[in-house]
C-alpha cells in the first residue's frame, strides 16, 4: 500500500487567551477563547469532545470569557412572577436555560454568543478601550469588566443584552484583573500600576488599596486576582510573586517568589484550600494550606492558615495565559492553555507528578477536502482556500521488503490555487466536488460557490469564477453554513444551515443560471426537549443516494437524496457522534462516537449491521481507552471488509472478516497490538498480499521515507498505528493508496516566538 504523507498544509491554531467553565448549576462545558476571536466549546464529560467552534472575525480577539447562568430571581423579574408557584416555575425555566456565553475583545466590544447558530447575538461597547478582564458576580446577575482606560464598568445582565449601571473610574492605570467578593459587595481589581484596589460597589468608592512590590521603581502589573472562600485575596504579578492578602485588613499574609517571570493566571478550588498559578515561565505551581500550629505551645491565636508551595510542573511549551478549574466531575482537574495553542488537562490528585492529557488542537470539522479522481487536496484556513495537486513518486522496480526505502518523488505536489476571501468573518466550511469542478465555501454570513476553470495564461494554475447563489435567510438576516458537502456525482450540494436546517441545491454547468434550491430538511432545526442543536457531521453515500446527518443531541437522520424524504432515524447512542461515513460499496453507515465506540448501520434494512450487533459493545479496552477520541473513518476500496478509524494521533485498522471467522474465539477482539517497526517487516513477509509501503512527502520534497505495515496474524483484527501525529485527514484516493495529512506539533512550535524559559541544567 502507498501512503501519501502530506505535511505541507500549514494549519496554525492561534494562542489561547481565555478558558472558562460553565457554572456548576448547568451542564459542564469549557469555552476556550483564542487570539483570533475563535471560541471553542469542549465537553469534558464526552471525553473532551470539541463540540463547537464559533468562528472569529477580522480585528477581534478574545481577552476574557464568561458563562452566565442565572439561578436566582432578581427584583426586576417580579413582573413575571407574583405568586410563589409562579416564582418556582420561573426559577425552573431559568435553570433549564442554557448558559449564556460572553466574551470580551481587544476592540472594546463585549459580545454575547449564540451557541447554536454559532454567531454573535449582541454586542455592547465598553467605551473604555480594550477589555482586559471580565467576571460575573456569584449570583450571575451583574457583569464587571476592567478596561484599558482604568474604568471598572458594571453591567446588568438582562435577557437580551447588557445595560451599563456603574462606572468605577480610576484614571491611573489599566484594570488587568478583577474578582468579586463572596457576598458580591466588593470588587477587588488589580491594575497595571502595582495596586490592588478594593471597591465598594454600592457606593462606588475605593475601600482599600494594597500595593505590591515594585522593582527599580517600575510599575508592577497585577495580572491576576482571586478571592478565596475565607476572603483571602490572592494576587499574581509581573515580578513572579504570588501574594496572599488578608481580605478584611488588606495586609499581606504571605508572599512567594514562585515564578521567574509574570504570573498570568491563577485558579483556586471552591473550598479555597488550593491555588494554582502559572505564567510566562511555563511553571504551574500549586499552593496548599497547611495547618500550622506549634506542637509545643498550643496558642490558639497562632492557628492561622499557612500556605505552602507544594510543587510545580512545567508542561506547557510556551507562556501559559489562562487556567480554569472544575472539581464537581468524577476527576478533579484544571485546564490550562496559552501560546502553545493546545489545552492541557491536569488532575489534582498527585499533582505535580501524575499524568496529564494534552487535548488535540485539530478541529473535528474537516479542514481538508479531497478530490480523489483528480488527486486534488483543498485546505481551508481562516480566510483562505488553498489547493494542491498531489505529487507522484517513482515506483520501485522490485519489492525488497526488508529495505523499502523512501520513494523518490518524481513530481512534487503543486500549489494550484490560493484564494483569499473577502469578508469580515472567518470561514466556517468548505467543500470540493469529486470531479474538482466546484468549490463551495462559507462563512457565517454567506455561502459562495465557485466554478473551477483552467487558467489560460498559466497551465499550472487554475482560476475560479463565482456562481450566483441565492441568499439564505435565517431569522431575517443573511446566513452562512456550518457544513458543506458535494455529492459524489457532483450534481448536488448539501448545505447545513446555521439554524441546522439542511438545504439541497442542484448544480448546473450552465453558468449563467442561478443555482436552484431543490429541497430543505428541517428535522435537525426542531428543538428537542427545548434544546436546539448543532450538526456535527454529515456524510453522503458513494452512489449519492443517501445523506446522513448527526447532531450534538445524538440525533442521526438518513435522508434519501432522490426522493428528498427522511429515510430513517437511527437509534440514539449514549454519547455524541464524532463522524459519519458510508461504505463505498454498500449502503452501510459507520458511526463513530466520542466514547470511541463505533457502530455499523445498515440503511436498507434500517438496523444495526450483524457485526455491530455482536461486537460493538465488546470492543477492546485498549481501543476504548485511547487518550484521543475517534475523529474519522475511511475505507480501502479494495478491501470491503476492513475499515480504518483514526483519531488525532493514531490509526486503527479493523478487519471485520476476521472477526466473523473467529466467532467462537472469545477474547479475539481484545487483541490490540501496536504497529511496531520491528514486527512490521516480519509481518510483511508473512502476509505478502497486505504489504504496506508508505511514501512520505515533506515540504522540501526531496526527502522521503517509507514504510508500513499491516500484520496478518490470525487473531489480530485491531491494529493500531501511532506513527502519524496530529492527523488532519486520512482518506483513500485509489485502492491501496492512502493519503495522510498531518500537522506536527513541533512545526507549530517552530513558528512561535522564543519562550522565556530555557532549560539550563542537565540538558
Amino acid at each position, binding site marked *: 500500500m502507498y501512503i501519501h504523507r502530506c505535511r505541507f498544509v500549514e494549519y496554525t491554531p492561534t494562542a489561547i487567551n481565555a478558558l472558562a467553565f460553565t457554572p456548576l448549576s448547568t451542564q459542564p462545558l469549557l469555552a476556550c477563547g483564542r487570539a483570533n476571536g475563535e471560541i471553542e466549546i469542549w465537553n469534558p464529560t464526552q471525553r473532551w469532545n470539541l463540540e463547537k467552534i464559533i468562528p472569529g472575525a477580522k480585528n477581534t480577539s478574545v481577552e476574557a470569557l464568561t458563562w452566565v447562568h442565572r439561578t436566582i430571581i432578581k427584583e426586576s423579574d417580579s413582573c413575571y412572577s407574583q405568586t410563589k408557584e409562579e416564582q418556582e416555575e420561573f426559577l425552573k425555566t431559568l435553570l433549564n436555560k442554557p448558559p449564556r456565553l460572553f466574551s470580551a475583545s481587544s476592540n472594546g466590544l463585549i459580545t454575547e454568543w449564540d451557541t447554536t447558530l454559532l454567531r454573535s447575538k449582541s454586542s455592547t461597547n465598553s467605551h473604555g478601550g480594550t477589555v482586559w478582564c471580565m467576571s460575573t458576580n456569584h449570583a450571575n446577575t451583574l457583569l464587571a469588566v476592567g478596561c484599558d482606560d482604568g474604568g471598572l464598568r458594571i453591567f446588568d445582565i438582562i435577557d437580551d443584552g447588557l445595560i451599563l449601571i456603574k462606572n468605577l473610574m480610576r484614571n491611573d492605570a489599566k484594570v488587568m484583573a478583577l474578582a468579586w467578593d463572596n457576598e458580591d459587595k466588593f470588587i477587588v481589581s488589580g491594575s497595571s500600576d502595582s495596586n490592588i484596589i478594593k471597591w465598594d460597589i454600592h457606593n462606588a468608592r475605593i475601600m482599600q488599596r494594597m500595593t505590591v512590590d515594585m522593582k527599580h521603581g517600575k510599575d508592577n502589573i497585577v495580572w491576576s486576582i482571586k478571592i478565596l472562600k475565607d476572603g483571602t485575596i490572592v494576587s499574581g504579578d509581573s515580578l513572579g510573586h504570588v501574594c496572599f492578602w488578608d481580605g478584611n485588613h488588606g495586609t499581606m499574609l504571605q508572599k512567594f517568589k514562585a515564578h521567574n517571570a509574570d504570573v498570568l493566571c491563577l485558579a483556586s478550588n471552591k473550598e479555597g484550600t488550593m491555588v494554582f498559578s502559572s505564567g510566562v515561565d511555563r511553571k504551574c505551581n500549586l499552593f496548599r494550606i*497547611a*495547618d*500550622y500550629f506549634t*506542637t509545643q505551645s498550643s496558642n490558639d491565636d497562632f492557628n492561622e492558615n499557612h500556605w*505552602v508551595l*507544594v510543587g510545580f510542573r512545567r508542561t506547557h511549551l510556551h507562556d501559559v495565559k489562562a487556567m480554569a478549574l472544575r472539581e464537581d466531575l468524577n476527576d478533579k482537574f484544571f485546564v490550562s492553555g496559552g501560546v502553545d495553542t493546545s489545552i492541557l488537562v491536569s488532575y489534582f490528585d498527585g499533582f505535580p507528578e501524575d499524568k496529564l492529557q494534552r487535548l488535540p488542537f485539530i478541529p473535528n470539522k474537516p479542514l481538508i477536502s479531497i478530490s480523489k479522481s483528480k488527486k486534488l487536496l483543498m485546505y481551508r484556513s481562516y480566510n483562505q482556500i488553498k489547493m494542491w495537486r498531489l505529487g507522484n513518486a517513482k515506483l520501485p522496480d522490485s519489492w525488497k521488503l526488508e529495505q523499502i526505502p523512501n520513494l523518490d518523488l518524481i513530481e512534487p505536489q503543486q500549489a494550484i490555487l490560493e484564494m483569499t476571501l473577502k469578508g469580515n468573518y472567518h470561514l466556517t466550511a468548505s467543500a470540493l466536488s469529486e470531479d474538482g469542478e466546484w468549490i463551495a465555501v462559507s462563512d457565517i454570513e454567506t455561502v459562495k460557490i465557485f466554478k473551477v476553470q483552467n487558467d489560460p495564461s498559466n497551465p499550472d494554475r487554475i482560476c475560479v469564477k463565482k456562481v450566483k447563489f441565492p441568499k439564505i435567510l435565517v431569522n431575517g438576516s443573511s446566513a452562512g453554513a456550518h457544513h458543506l458537502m458535494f455529492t459524489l456525482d457532483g450534481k448536488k450540494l448539501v448545505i447545513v444551515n446555521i439554524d441546522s436546517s439542511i438545504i439541497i441545491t442542484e448544480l448546473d454547468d450552465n453558468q449563467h443560471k442561478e443555482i436552484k434550491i431543490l429541497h430543505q430538511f428541517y428535522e435537525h432545526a426542531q428543538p428537542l426537549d427545548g434544546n436546539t442543536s448543532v450538526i456535527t457531521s454529515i456524510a453522503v453515500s458513494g452512489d449519492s443516494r443517501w445523506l446522513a446527518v448527526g447532531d450534538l443531541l445524538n440525533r442521526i437522520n438518513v435522508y434519501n437524496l432522490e426522493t428528498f424524504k427522511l429515510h430513517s432515524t437511527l437509534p440514539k447512542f449514549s454519547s455524541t457522534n464524532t463522524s459519519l461515513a458510508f461504505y463505498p460499496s454498500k449502503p452501510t453507515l459507520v458511526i463513530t462516537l466520542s466514547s470511541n465506540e463505533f457502530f455499523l448501520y445498515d440503511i436498507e434494512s434500517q438496523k444495526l449491521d450483524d457485526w455491530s450487533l455482536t461486537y460493538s459493545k465488546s470492543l477492546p479496552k485498549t481501543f476504548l481507552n485511547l487518550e484521543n477520541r475517534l475523529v474519522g473513518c475511511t475505507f480501502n476500496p479494495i478491501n470491503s471488509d476492513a475499515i480504518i478509524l483514526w483519531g488525532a494521533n493514531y490509526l486503527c485498522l479493523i478487519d471485520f472478516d476476521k472477526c466473523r471467522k473467529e466467532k467462537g474465539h472469545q477474547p479475539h477482539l481484545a487483541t490490540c497490538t501496536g504497529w511496531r517497526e520491528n514486527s512490521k517487516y516480519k509481518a510483511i513477509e508473512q502476509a505478502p498480499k497486505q504489504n504496506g509501503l508508505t511514501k512520505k512527502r515533506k515540504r522540501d520534497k526531496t526527502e522521503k521515507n517509507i514504510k508500513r505495515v499491516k500484520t496478518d496474524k490470525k487473531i489480530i483484527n485491531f491494529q493500531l498505528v501511532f506513527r502519524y501525529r496530529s492527523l488532519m485527514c486520512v482518506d483513500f484516493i485509489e485502492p491501496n493508496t492512502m493519503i495522510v495529512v498531518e500537522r506536527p506539533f513541533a512545526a507549530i512550535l517552530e513558528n512561535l516566538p522564543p519562550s522565556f524559559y530555557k532549560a539550563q541544567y*542537565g540538558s
Partner: protein
Amino acid sequence: MMLNPNDPLQLLSGSLDGTIKVWKYSDVELLKTYEFGIPIYRMVILASYPDRFFVVTGIPCKNASCRGKQKAQALLHFRFDKKDQPEMHLLCKSKSMCTGLVTSPDGEFLIISFLRTIRIIKIKLNQQKGQKWPKYTHSSNISCIAIHPSKPYISIGDEYGKITHMYCLKESQIQDPVKSSVHWHPHKVNSLAFTSDGTYLLSGGEESVLVIWQIETGHTQFLPRLGSEIRSVTISPDQTLYAINLLDNSIKILSAINLEIKQAVQGLKHAQVDASIYPLSTGLVIEPRNHLVVLNGLPGTIQFYNPHSDRHVMEHEVSQRTMISRAFEKDIVYPNVNHVSFSSNGNWMTTVDSREDGETTPELYLKFWKFDPNSQTYVLNTRIDNPHSKAVVSLNFHPGTNDTSLSVVTTGLDNKFKVWKINSESHASQVSKDSISWVCKFVGSYRQYTPRAAAFSQDGSILSVAYDSIITLWDSRSNVLRDVLTLLPNYESIKHLAFTNNSPFLVATTQNYLYVWNLLTCTIWWSHRTEAHHLVVDPKSTRFIVASNCEKSQECRLFVFEPQTAIPVMVHTVKDIVKAIAYFPRKFDDVSSPSNVLQSYIIYLNQNYDMLMIGENFVEKVR
C-alpha cells in the same frame, strides 16, 4: 547510638549482636547491658518512657530468594520490667530496609520510613496500637527522614535528591497531607538535620556539599568542597556547631557562624572505597624517613599514616583531579595508584598510577617525586607516560643511597622490565643541579616470558626478575644476565619474590609453594607447600613472614621463618583476613623490648581495612 534523654552523661549504643549498652562516656564505663537477642539496626527511646525501647530489627528470611539488599525489617517495641525481662510488641513491619526512625520532639509520634513507605505511630501511655495514620507511599526511594522540631511536618530525602516536607502530623491533614518539595541535590540525600529552633535545615549527599536551607524563604547557603561524600549531619543542641561525617572516614566539626572547620578527625581513608574497582594495590609501604605507613587513600591519592599515634599525617595526590560529582547515574572512573616505592634514604618516591574506563585511552604514568625538605612533601620530578605498553606489575627501588647508583626497576605485562636512572650526564653542563630527571637506562626481557616480580638484593648488586616459573639474576650495575633459576617440577608462576636480609637466600612464592634458594649454590635450599598470600621480609633481621589466608574460617596464619631452615620459628594465627602486611620498625625510644626475638612490629590490614599491629605479645588495634 544516642544520648539518654534523661541523663545527658549517658550514652546508649545498640548493635547487631542484639544488645543495647548504656555507657557513661565521661569515664568510659559500661553501666548496663540490655539483652535483646535480635540484631538491632536502629533504636529510639523516649524521655517520658525510659524503660521502653523502640527497635528496628531484621526479619530472618525464610527462603533464599530474598537474600538481596532489601531485607525485611520490623519495628518492635520493648518494655523492660523490673527484672529486666523484655516484653515485646510488634508495631509494624515491611519487606524493605528501614531508612529512618525518628520521634517527634514532644514524644507523641514515632515515624519510621522504609524504602518507599512512611508510617506514623502515635505513642500513648497505655495503648500503642491506636494507629489510624495511613501508610504513606513516596514516589521514589526514601533515603532519610527528619522531623521539624516545632511544626507538624516531616522532611523526607530521597534518592533523586529531592527533599519533601510532608505536613501529616495534624489530625486534619492525615488523609491528604500537603507536601512541598525543594530540590537541589542531583544525587541521593544522605542526611537531613533541623536546627533546634526549626529555622534551618541541613542536608548533605554525594556531592560533598553541605546545603543549609532557610526553611521559611527557601534561601540556600552552600558549603562546597568538603572532600568526600557526606554520610550524616548533626547539629549541636545550642546550634553553634555542625558535625558532618564524610565517606572518607572522617568527621568534621564546623562552626555554625562562619562555616569554618573547627576540628577534623580523620581515619584511614581506604575503608570506604569500593575495593573491587580501586584495590589496595600498593600494599603497606613503610616510608623510610619518618617510618609512616603509606597506602592507597581515596582513588588517585596515597595517604601517610602514623600507626603509633594513630593519626592521619598527610595525603598525597598522585594524580590531580577536579572534585566533581557524577552528572548521571554512571560513576566517574578515577585514576588508581598501583604501586608506591621509596628510596632507602627517603629522598625519592616513585608511583605508578593508571586509569582505565573502557571508553577513553587508558592512562598509565610512572612518576618520580623528590622530597622537598622545606615543605616536607614530595614534589613531582619526572612523569613518564606509558612506561610500559601494558600494565605495570611491580616497582622496586634499588637499595643504594647514592643518587648516581640509584635505580628503579619496573616490570610490565608487555614482557619487559625496565631500569630507570637519574639522568645526570646529558644536561649536567648547561642546567643546574635541580633539573635532574629520570630516564630509562635499560630494557630487558627474557625470551617471551612475562615478568611477574622483581627484587634487588640487599646490597644492590643483584637484580632478580621472576618470570612465570623462572627466576633470572642480573648484575644490577652492568645489566648482564648472570644466572637462571628454574623451578622444578612445578610450573606455577611466581607471585612474590624477595631477598632475605643478611643472608644469601632468595624467597619466592607461587600459588601453592614456597621456595627458598641459596644463592651461593643456586639451588633450592628448601621448599614448603603452603598457600602464601603475602611475603614480607624483615628489614632488620634475616627473618621473613609468609601470610596465608583461609577464607573458610576467616583466619590467617602468619609463619615466621628463618631462611636456613624449613621449620617456622613461630606461627601466629589472627582471626582476620590479611589484606596487606608489613614489618614496621620499632620506635627509636621504644627500648623496652625484652628480647630481640622480634626486631619489628608487624602491621597488617584486615578485611575491614582496620590496621592492626602485632608486637611480641600483644595485638593493638589501631584503626
